[in-house]
């Protein structure tokens, strides 16, 4: 059976050498596709995650636990943090502390913040942990790294454009861009057209 994909690469009728553009297009589509697999998956997963940022935190898992200790005396400003540490059995000194108001103190540790209500002894222990893998994917997707990653992301975006365009010409015939492919491509354009007309 004749290879439907490469029928354009048959020797030109007039004898002149022409560029086997379909073969190049398919080769580009194939190789760029291989190169783009990892980032496409990473960016897609991250895209779903950050789309729902109103419902959840895609980067961090923040847990808040309420514990109660005995009320802590506010004898002197300098004594408050050591007293809180003692009451909470914290041996390491905090990174820093803050008094948002006269009855509250916050102790900042790496990954954990203690919000302490001194008169009642109620403490919110806020633990923050980055979501493994997803955090890194989001960093790349949203280009937090800046610098050279901006260029890598640009190259990746160009690769996606190339994949989309070359993908149109992989098949010939009734399944290709002149047949079924045209309808599917048009259907894929509908969300963009809808946005341009109704949502912009």
């Amino acid at each position: 059976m004749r290879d439907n994909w490469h029928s354009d690469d048959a020797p030109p009728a007039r004898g002149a050498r022409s560029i086997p553009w379909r073969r190049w297009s398919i080769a580009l589509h194939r190789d760029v596709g291989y190169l783009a697999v990892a980032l496409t998956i990473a960016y897609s997963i991250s895209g779903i995650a950050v789309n729902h940022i109103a419902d959840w935190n895609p980067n961090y898992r923040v847990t808040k636990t309420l514990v109660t200790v005995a009320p802590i005396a506010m004898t002197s400003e300098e004594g408050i943090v050591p007293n809180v540490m003692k009451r909470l059995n914290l041996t390491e000194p905090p990174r820093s502390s803050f008094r948002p108001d006269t009855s509250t103190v916050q102790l900042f540790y790496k990954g954990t913040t203690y919000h302490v209500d001194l008169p009642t002894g109620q403490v919110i222990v806020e633990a923050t942990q980055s979501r493994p893998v997803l955090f890194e994917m989001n960093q790349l997707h949203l280009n937090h790294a800046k610098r050279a990653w901006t260029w890598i992301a640009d190259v990746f975006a160009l690769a996606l454009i190339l994949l989309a365009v070359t993908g149109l010409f992989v098949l010939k015939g009734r399944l290709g861009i002149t047949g079924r492919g045209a309808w599917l491509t048009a259907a894929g354009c509908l969300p963009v057209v809808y946005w341009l007309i109704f949502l912009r």
Partner: protein
Amino acid sequence: MTTLRTLAAAVLLVAVAALPAQSQAKNYGKPLTLKEKTPISAILKDPHAYHGKRVQVEGTIVEVCEERGCWINIASDKPFEKIRFKVDDGVIVFPLDAKGKQAIVEGVVQVNMLTKEQAMAQAKEMHKERGTLAKFDSTKYTKDVMDVQIKGDGARVQ
């Protein structure tokens, strides 16, 4: 095959180079340019005097925007005071683990008046987000509130 391997290695090297270096101090956004720091307490004492002026302030980060990392609250040099340093979404993204670290930030002071309804709605939202210990007290909002923040474009966190 060798070409492919070389290409893969090159891509990996560039990717590693693109990742931020793990150093003590980390710079965000534009470089800091001002030579002198302004005490946060001075800005909060007379906000209108600083409205529209570019300032550099320093203090402990006491809060970070959980959703987008697009603002931090910085403790003042005086107790019970803090100021918000706001950046455009995505331009700078402060990590949540910056809490408790020292920050030097630079930007323009903005003074806005919030109606009591706006102030109450904002405080209610913050209260809900933070899950703080105290009950939300709507009776505290009886008049318009002055909102002072620094709209920034550069920061150093250490």
